[in-house]
């Protein structure tokens, strides 16, 4: 079949199959097709690559973690706009949700080949694998559902309804339950992973009575729970609620909120330090970060930070807070809980999220508007730019990293 024919057929089949409209990136499209036919092994060590989610070039790129050289990329389709990618625990697969394609995409890592497109719910974004790797849960925030993808048959075996803008998904270590942050509500959903059913809705906090006076704030746009962050021992969930300015602590044994902690204004989510001692919230309402001591379950420090914070990475005894629009990483000493300066990445940049390597030595920070990933040495705070990784890199991912998150 000629290349031109393949292109035409793919255009028309995509037109008919998904309702999405038409190809624009012809070269990239043909590259993806030719990639799909290749069977040679390109990646032998999945732990030695950094995944880069390129939202606007619609691909997942692979970068060698040792050399910072691009290995290649897997094109997903025009206007797919992937949001988050994750590698299966065995390093065999990479999965991603194409937000504007309403599909999940499965990539075979060794051959860097797109092997399956699976229609899911509306606007898929965040995702997670079950601990045994059998399933992957794909959140569909605009469809208020979670798609359950069977990684053996590579099919959607169930779509769990009943959520309200489900964002991040957190599994308990034993894989029996999943906790779903609902950004469009003030509760965390508990899913029975055996039956793939929504069991409970745990209210994080009550909206105060005085909220009736402020419809502009409480009815205009809801900022609920974006993530359920789990303690290292799996016992507690720390769920920050943006509108309420609190973190609710859920005991996973009986799925009850055992304490609510007031933090700064508009917390995005809690990030667990690697030693499990602190849960750190980024509070975009007052541009602060709150450090919650997980042994006492109380805020032990609230420190000044920057605007539009999208994530926290932990390495070399420090916390690195990504301030998206300022072009800075704010740094905090995790021993003294004091500010330790800030690292200027650049001017007029839009920083997205970062991943820490498994040695806790380097951060791989996606910078969307200059199409780059910045590699930051956590100890020396030296910064190296890897340019041209793809268009609008939205996030990065490293197998077994403790800081794999999205925004």
């Amino acid at each position: 079949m000629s290349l031109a024919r393949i292109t035409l057929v793919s255009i028309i089949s995509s037109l008919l199959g998904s309702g999405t409209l038409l190809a624009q990136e012809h070269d990239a499209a043909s590259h993806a097709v030719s990639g799909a036919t290749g069977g040679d092994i390109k990646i032998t060590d999945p732990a030695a690559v950094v995944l880069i989610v390129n939202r606007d070039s619609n691909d997942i790129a692979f970068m060698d973690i040792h050399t910072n050289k691009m290995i290649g990329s897997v094109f997903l389709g025009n206007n797919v706009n992937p949001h988050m990618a994750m590698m299966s625990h065995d390093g065999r697969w990479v999965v991603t949700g194409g937000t504007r394609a309403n599909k999940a995409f499965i990539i075979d890592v060794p051959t860097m080949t797109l092997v399956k497109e699976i229609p899911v719910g509306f606007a898929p974004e965040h995702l997670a694998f079950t601990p045994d790797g059998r399933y992957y849960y794909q959140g569909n925030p605009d469809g208020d559902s979670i798609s359950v993808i069977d990684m053996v048959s590579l099919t959607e075996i169930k779509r769990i309804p009943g959520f309200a803008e489900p964002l991040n998904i957190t599994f308990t270590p034993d894989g029996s339950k999943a906790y779903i942050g609902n950004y469009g509500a003030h509760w965390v959903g508990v899913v029975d992973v055996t039956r793939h059913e929504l069991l409970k809705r745990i209210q994080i906090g009550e909206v105060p009575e005085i909220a009736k006076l402020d419809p502009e704030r409480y009815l205009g746009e809801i900022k609920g729970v974006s993530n359920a962050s789990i303690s290292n021992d799996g016992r507690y969930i720390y769920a920050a609620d943006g509108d309420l300015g609190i973190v609710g602590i859920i005991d996973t044994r009986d799925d009850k909120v055992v304490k609510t902690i007031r933090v700064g204004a508009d917390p995005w989510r809690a990030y667990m330090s690697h030693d499990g001692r602190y849960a750190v919230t980024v509070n975009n309402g007052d541009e602060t970060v709150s450090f919650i001591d997980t042994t006492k379950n109380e805020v032990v420090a609230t420190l000044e930070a920057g605007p539009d914070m999208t994530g926290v990475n932990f390495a070399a005894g420090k916390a690195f807070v990504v301030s998206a629009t300022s072009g800075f990483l704010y740094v905090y000493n995790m021993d003294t809980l004091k500010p330790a300066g800030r690292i200027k990445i650049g001017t007029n940049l839009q920083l997205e999220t970062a991943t820490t390597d498994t040695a806790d030595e380097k951060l791989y920070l996606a910078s969307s508007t200059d199409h780059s990933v910045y590699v930051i040495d956590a100890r020396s705070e030296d910064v190296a730019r890897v340019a041209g990784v793809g268009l609008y890199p939205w996030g990065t991912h490293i197998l077994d990293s403790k800081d794999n998150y999205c925004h």
Partner: protein
Amino acid sequence: MCHIRDPIRHSRPSSRSVFGRGPLWTVVGFASMAALPWHLEAQESQPPQQQTSESGRQQLLDRIDELERRLDDLESTAVLSEPETRVRRIEVWVDENGIEYDEPMPGTRSVVTYQRERVFRRQTINEKIEEALDDAANRSVGLGVDAAIVLQNAQQTTGADTPADGNFYELASADLFFTAGLAQYTVFFADIVGLSGTPPDAEVDALTLLNGYAARLVRQNELNLREAWLMTELFSQRLSLSAGRVDLTNYFDHNAAANDETSQFVSDALVNNPMLGLSENGAGLAAVYDPKTGFNAKIGYQQSSSSATNLSDSLFYLAEVGHLWTPFGLGEGNYRLWYRTDNGSGTNRKAYGVSVDQRLTPVITVFGRFGSAQTDGARDRFVSAGLQFRNGTVFNPEDAWGIGYAQTELGAGDDEMLLEGYYNLHMTEKLNLSFHLTHVTEEPIGAGKISYLVPGVRLQASF
């Protein structure tokens, strides 16, 4: 060849009409295009000589190119998912003839330029509208309003009768803020304030103002330019410089629990340290060095008297160092030490002071200030302390309350003891209602002690 071309030609008129018409035509066009693969399948059964005809292949490729172009047009113009474009700063290499290259070439030099790039992101109409609104907001001059009404009553509790006893006082204040971005890391800010009404300070002869809204403003019942300055940030934004008509208390003598008459204590003694000696704002400069390590240093100067005819004769100079500590396993604490000189009185008078706020628990913050100022005789002294409560001990989650005590001792012998408690009810993001109870005792030299109990209500809106 003709068999190859015909189906596409057949579809062509309808395709062309599709792109210029409405949704119905779009559907019809898609339907006709849906037939294309089947026609192509049929073509494979044609004789090999026709299949391999080079000109036929080329024409097919041309057709496909045209079809793809039309599809691009369709996506660009006929649907809501218009491809996003953005302008990017790029580095190119230019030779002596002005020819640009993407990579360094012999005889080229590096030049930074800007170029539009098209990206392939499907945007919803909501996202486009939101972006447009944000863009418009970023380009416009920002306007903010901070308005307040403070109603106070003076009940004399000790001392000889004074005219203030039993009187009510009301002060209305409105600040209009203007901000505009002028260049990279450079903004303009202006604050025009109008005050109307009568604060108790006209009748209660106190050393410090019982209503902090009137601080550092000379004229009332008319518009005042409180501040107008340009601020720029240098050295990776570690150093900020603000120059113009400045209010140095915005930069110096900060305190997390007692620094804001709009949401905390209303008495000026619990807003700023009187030993700073700033009676009005003036032209000047403030430089703040903040490497975000917990340490910061500030210096500033301003004209201390608007009646002075030159800066040299009314120079108010202020310096401060601050440090963030977490002592004894407590929460964050801010410790500041300042020093100032002022030659506005004809001699260069000096003062120093400290301002501390320390979070004891997630609920309680303790604060304190101390200051000592040089005078013609003995030194003036000031001390204040108090507690602020948030979280858990409030009616609504974002409420706060506090109690504070301030004592002012002038070298000349006059003393003042002031105690205030307040509860700030955070009603909405834009509206606060607070209740205040102040007790002030004045001990003027050579006269008897006079005390007042001053209850008050403050309604404050900011938007």
